[in-house]
Each structure stands twice: as C-alpha cells, then as structure tokens.
C-alpha cells in the first residue's frame, strides 16, 4: 500500500473511505477449495436441474454429491483442469461442461457474437458514411446556407418562426 504514504488530511480521509468500501474485495481462501469453487462453476449438475454444479442447491439432488466427489478426487490427485474436464466428459458426455470448448465447431459459439457485433459496427459506420455523402442531403444543406435562395415571403415566415421558437428562458412560468 505504498501509494497511501503521501501526506495530507484529505488524502488520509480518502484512504479510509477507499479502504472501507473495498474491504469486501480482499479475497482469501485455501487453494483446494478455491480451485473446487472455480472448477465446479464450469461444470453442470447432470440431474437435469440446469444449474451449475457449484450452484446446484436443490434438495436431494441425486447427482451433485457424486460429481463433487469426483471433482475433489481429481483436485486431490493434482490433475490439470483439462484432465479433470476430459474425465467428466468421458463419463457424462459433452453437456457436463457448462460452456462450449474453444476448439472445433464449438469455437463458432464464441466467435459468432463478436463477429456479429463487428459486422454490425462496420455496417453502421458505412451506412452513416453513405448517408452523409448522399447528394440529396448535401443539396438541402447547401440550399439552407445560401441566402440568395430565400425569397421575401419566406423570409417573413422565417422571422415568425424564429420569434416563436426562440428560447425565452421560461419567463412567465
């Protein structure tokens, strides 16, 4: 917390406030349980409740206990994440993974949304650009700034319009 060493009362107050708010962000848990927590949130409970293994909480779930045991055994044996996932897939099928993998066709699941966003962004920018260079728009803009294009009758109208729409600051409210 070296950043906190600068003097000044306001700085101290700020420190206190920041510390108070962010106490909640200081994490601390043992390694195995953190790892269990992390991995169990990437696996599904297979009983059909459609919940994550780490969050499945319905009473009397027939599968949660066994899956948790297997996961704990895998962690205790020091297997890598991928090995644990592979053994789960081998036993329960691909649906046990809570998210698609990042290889093969599954990759499409991850890429498509960002592709759509990028294509949409590009499309929108191009659309706006095309609109901007649209000759019809350019023409009206030119006509608007050309004082010669305005005849006297229109000028009177415009003055009326300006009077009626000028911002009066809410006088009389």
């Amino acid at each position: 917390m070296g950043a906190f060493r600068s003097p000044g009362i306001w700085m101290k107050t700020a420190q206190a406030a920041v510390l108070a708010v962010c106490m909640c962000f200081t994490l601390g848990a043992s390694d195995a349980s953190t790892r269990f927590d992390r991995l169990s949130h990437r696996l599904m409970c297979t009983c059909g409740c459609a919940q994550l293994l780490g969050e499945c909480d319905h009473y009397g779930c027939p599968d949660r206990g066994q899956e948790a045991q297997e996961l704990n055994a895998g962690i205790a044996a020091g297997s890598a994440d991928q090995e644990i996932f592979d053994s789960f897939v081998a036993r329960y099928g691909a649906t046990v993974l809570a998210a698609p993998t990042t290889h093969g066709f599954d990759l499409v699941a991850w890429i498509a949304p960002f592709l759509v966003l990028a294509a949409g962004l590009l499309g929108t920018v191009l659309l706006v650009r095309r609109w901007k260079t649209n000759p019809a728009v350019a023409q009206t803009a030119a006509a608007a700034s050309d004082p010669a294009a305005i005849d006297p009758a229109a000028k009177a109208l415009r003055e009326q319009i300006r009077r009626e729409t000028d911002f009066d600051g809410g006088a009389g409210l």
Partner: protein
Amino acid sequence: MTQSLGLILGALLALVLFVYTFWPENAFASQREKTRLDFLQERKEQLYENLRDLNFEFRAGKYPEEDFVAQRSQLENETAQLMAEIELLQQG
C-alpha cells in the same frame, strides 16, 4: 354453485353482452380521414419542437456557433415551406 345456476348466469351474461354489442344506437364515432392539413400541422409542431430544442442545446453549449446557425436555417427553411403550404391549404 350448482351447474344449472352456472348455466343461467352464463346465459344471462351472454344476453347482456349481446345486447350491449348490438344495441342500435346512432351515436358512433365516424372514421375521419386524416387530412393533409392535419398532417402538416403535426409536422410543424414537431419542427417547432426541434427548433426549440436546438436553441436550448446551443445555449447549453453543445454546438459551435457556425453549426448552430446552419442547423437552424435548415430547420427554419423546412418549417417555412411547410407553413407556406399550410397557408395555401387554409385559404383554399
């Protein structure tokens, strides 16, 4: 509640609603076509609204002077054309 009471109540409801629906009455609202003038008035109000907004946003510091003047004259031109047509229609 017995079944027959239910039947009677249902029949009663049917009768009341039928009478309500088909009661001969002359006062029904006519379906007026929206005229060109109505449409132009609406447009004019909207353009006025846009102009007021433009004025306000300029004062709030969201436009540089030259942008504001260009935008305003463009909107005013459009409104003026519209108002000319309104006057024409009103005279006719």
